[in-house]
């Protein structure tokens, strides 16, 4: 089998626990992401999602293990991996527009100033920021607006891999919906691969090709990889009518509610690969049975 576009191999992260000991966040986590795939990772707070993302971004070095993109080992950050940080990370001394042109100018040093501004303005408009607002400082924006600036900054650079750390966390339901649609549009029109963290199950089902489920830390495991067997294009209103929707949703809710705890803290020397789970009510039970062994069946009935 050929290697996936993004391959995470035996990633282990150990931090000092502040009391002289060690805190193993996760151990030998291994999974792959295909080119053009939209992968969402779900897990409770503190299980190590942001840690994984920082490693993928090249901002942090894992204690051991490697990340390969397109066959090359990731070492250090790159413009090919765009990041939307959990805390927005806007530069507070720059205006909203300048925060975006900052990135665009770095990506396209050959562009004229007018080109950079035009491109940036376009992406700000895409996330609903237009007019005077773009000349304000981040401190004069609401939390949701800041998050949108951060999203515009990452999208405007067309990275091969978009890394999104709870990008919609501070948004109201309405804006969230619009920007989710924008994200799907941008992603659909390009070869971009998206790796996103969220706490929102519905958002995950709407957006993802595949959802990775993490157990609680320490020694968190990427326990399952749930395929979202709902055809695209999806919209918030139509997916709920799909026969697979509630089956998948229940599976995720049960995982986060109970099994993430039960499975937590299991140290194992073997490589931690997520178990693939495919829930599809549109095919007969006998067909899907072999792919989802273990007690998962319960949630499907």
């Amino acid at each position, binding site marked *: 089998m050929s290697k996936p576009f993004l391959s995470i191999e035996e990633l282990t992260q150990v931090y000092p626990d502040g009391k002289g000991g060690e805190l193993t966040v996760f151990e030998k986590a291994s999974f792959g992401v295909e080119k053009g795939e939209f992968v969402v990772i779900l897990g409770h707070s503190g299980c190590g999602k942001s840690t994984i993302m920082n490693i993928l971004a090249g901002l942090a070095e894992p204690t051991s293990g490697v990340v390969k993109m397109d066959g090359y080992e990731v070492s250090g950050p790159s413009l090919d991996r765009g990041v939307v940080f959990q805390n927005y990370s806007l530069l507070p001394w720059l205006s909203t527009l300048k925060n975006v042109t900052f990135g665009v100018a770095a990506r396209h040093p050959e562009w004229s100033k007018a080109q950079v501004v035009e491109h940036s303005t376009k992406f700000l408009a895409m996330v609903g920021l237009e007019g005077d607002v773009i000349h304000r400082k981040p*401190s004069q924006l609401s939390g949701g607006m800041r998050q949108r600036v951060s999203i515009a900054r990452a999208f405007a*650079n067309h990275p091969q891999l978009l890394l999104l750390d709870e990008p919609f966390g501070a948004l109201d339901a309405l804006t969230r919906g619009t920007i989710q649609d924008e994200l799907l549009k941008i992603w659909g029109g390009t070869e971009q691969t998206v790796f996103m963290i969220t706490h929102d199950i519905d958002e995950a089902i709407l957006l993802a090709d595949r959802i990775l489920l993490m157990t609680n830390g320490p020694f968190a495991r990427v326990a399952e990889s749930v395929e979202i067997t709902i055809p695209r294009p999806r919209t918030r209103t139509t997916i709920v009518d799909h026969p697979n929707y509630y089956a998948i949703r229940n599976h995720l809710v049960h995982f986060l509610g109970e099994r993430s705890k039960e499975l937590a803290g299991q140290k194992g020397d073997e490589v931690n690969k997520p178990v693939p789970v495919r829930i599809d009510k549109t095919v007969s039970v006998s067909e899907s049975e072999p792919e989802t062994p273990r007690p998962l069946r319960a949630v499907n009935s």
Partner: protein
Amino acid sequence: MGQLSLNQRAALLSLVMLVVGLLVWELSIPAQKAAEELTEYERLTGAGSAKAGVPPPSDVLAKAWEQLSNPFYDAGPNDKGIGIQIGYSIYRVLTGYALAAALAIPLGFLIGMSPVAYKALNPFIQVLRPISPLAWMPLALFIIGDSEASAIFVIFICSIWPMLINTAFGVAAVRQDWVNVARTHELGHLKTAFFVILPAAAPTIVTGMRISIGIAWLVIVAAEMLVGGTGIGYYVWNEWNNLDLTSVVFSILMIGVVGMMLDAAFGYLQRTVSYVE
């Protein structure tokens, strides 16, 4: 009173305090002159004579008017206008200060970026920093020889520490998130330093610069009293030797005004580089 804004009320109060203060000062002068019990020192310095007494504010005002209406006259080494004297002082302060900034800010950057450099340089900084700048004066005069350059050196040495320490601190405290933004955009070291770390640390750096200019202005007066020749510090000392206390009081006021203006300039700079997180 109810309709006046906070600022207006404060201004009014300031004015009242000024008038009352000047009035008390003015009225207390004849009483002081009437006092017959002069100490030996006062008699020697001529405090008993009308000229050498603490001048009333009206005399100081008259002096100020006289001096400020022709601030740049030059009638020999011991008789120059207040503008010329202050000019010399500002020139020395700015020269020494600029040299200090040119060294302290890049060095502070280095120290702030590198824990090794910080640890290596820290002992030197800790020993050199508490030394009174004037203590360097004899050494400076001996090594440099020139009194002008020695005064500038003293300004240099006293301005360097707040700038150095604040720059190092400001640079070290730049949020990792912002550095990460630079890194994910593949900015080189130089670009990161200029476009991310410098603006992020600028408020702290400028605070250090503001403290430095304040200290430099404090020190120049004392330094000029020592080296003599020109400058506002020399002028104060010279007028004291001439027993012209009116000029002394006037020049003290001028020192305050110039110091205030220097500070205001850096206050302005501070506002332009500050940002809200």
